[in-house]
């Protein structure tokens, strides 16, 4: 029920956004967020974007665990 799916914002028009869930496009409400821009990643829950996603942060967080780029690991 609290499942929220990441999506990429394609278009923003007055509190409503068109987002891309890996190929599936849907309209979502953006009332709950400030300054959403196209290109942003958001988490979508019951038709509302509930938070932005910071992909840099994700990569940073797991970098030390995966030793990314280190082919010997």
């Amino acid at each position: 029920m609290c499942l929220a799916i990441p999506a990429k914002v394609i278009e923003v028009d007055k509190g409503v956004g068109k987002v891309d869930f890996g190929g599936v496009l849907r309209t979502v409400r953006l009332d709950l967020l400030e300054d959403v821009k196209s290109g942003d990643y958001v988490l979508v829950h019951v038709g509302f974007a509930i938070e932005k996603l910071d992909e840099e942060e994700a990569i940073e967080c797991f970098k030390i665990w995966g030793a990314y780029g280190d082919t010997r690991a």
Partner: protein
Amino acid sequence: MEIHELKNRINDPRVIENLLKAIRKLSDRIGPVRIMHVCGTHEHEIVRFGLRSLLPQEVEIISGPGCPVCVTPKRDIDRAIFLADRCIITTYGDMYRVPSNSGSFEAATSEGNDIRVVYSITDALDIAANEDKEVIHFGIGFETTSPASAAVLIDQPRNFSILSVHRLIPPALSFLLSPGEAKVDALLNPGHVSTIIGTEVYEDISKKFRIPQVVTGFEPADILLGIYMVMKQINEGRCEVENGYKRAIKREGNRKAQKILKEVFYIKDAEWRGFPEILDSGYGIRDKYEEWDALKKFEDELGDFVYEDQGEKGCRCGEVLRGLIKPEECGLFREVCSPSNPVGACMVSSEGACNIAFKFG
């Protein structure tokens, strides 16, 4: 980067293996631990990816009351069914088949009532805009879902009201940690609830109950990271709130959503299925929005609503939700109670612990 690339990167086999190694090492040091999560999506992903089987035996992950459908009291379902002969009721999918005293939404529909499943509350608004009949949306869900309900009431829609059964997670955590409940050494806090409420709200709980908490995301690597982080706290004797899902969560949470919640809802004591009433754990609709509060709008009609609890018929959902037993310990599990013939709510919802144990067990 596309979403699926990000997922692959996070769940890189090296990440998983290194996290598991670190968990094993900590487990050797600290011995048996019981870690509770309170999110149906966590349970679903843990079982789907078989994470329990990858963990050392001493690390026990128990499932708490993280399924909003499962904790919704039968009384509230019955109340909505009571109003169904004069309105259209809309509800989120999992709720449709959950048994109550007077049947279920599904049974009430087969008796001729108009009860419709919606994906979003905005679908319910569309129905209200196109129908003459009143629409009552059955508003279930935790802090993740409640802001959507609040946001639509601010627009003052026509023909529409909400029966709010929304619940808050932190008061339930305090209840679960009180004496007499399941013994828990650490908590994995729900990632998506926390996008809204942040991590700060859990800090008093860590202080009061001396318990480590980590707000945890939903990829397999996220869940293992959460487990690692709480075990590290246990090893170091710390009882803090840490954020293991920084890509989505800020300490202060989503301020705008919080403001919208506060505008529309007040906090009240509330019943949870399987629990006694929990202090300050429910959202009621403020007087300012009473025109959209089904309880007020249909106050006269509801004067005739009587509810008599008919007990649980051997269903042990309450204990499952409180982490006191595993689904398999219920005598009705599988033989009598199954997803096609559910006795309790935990077997209906795709996030109910019984349903998940049945499907993947």
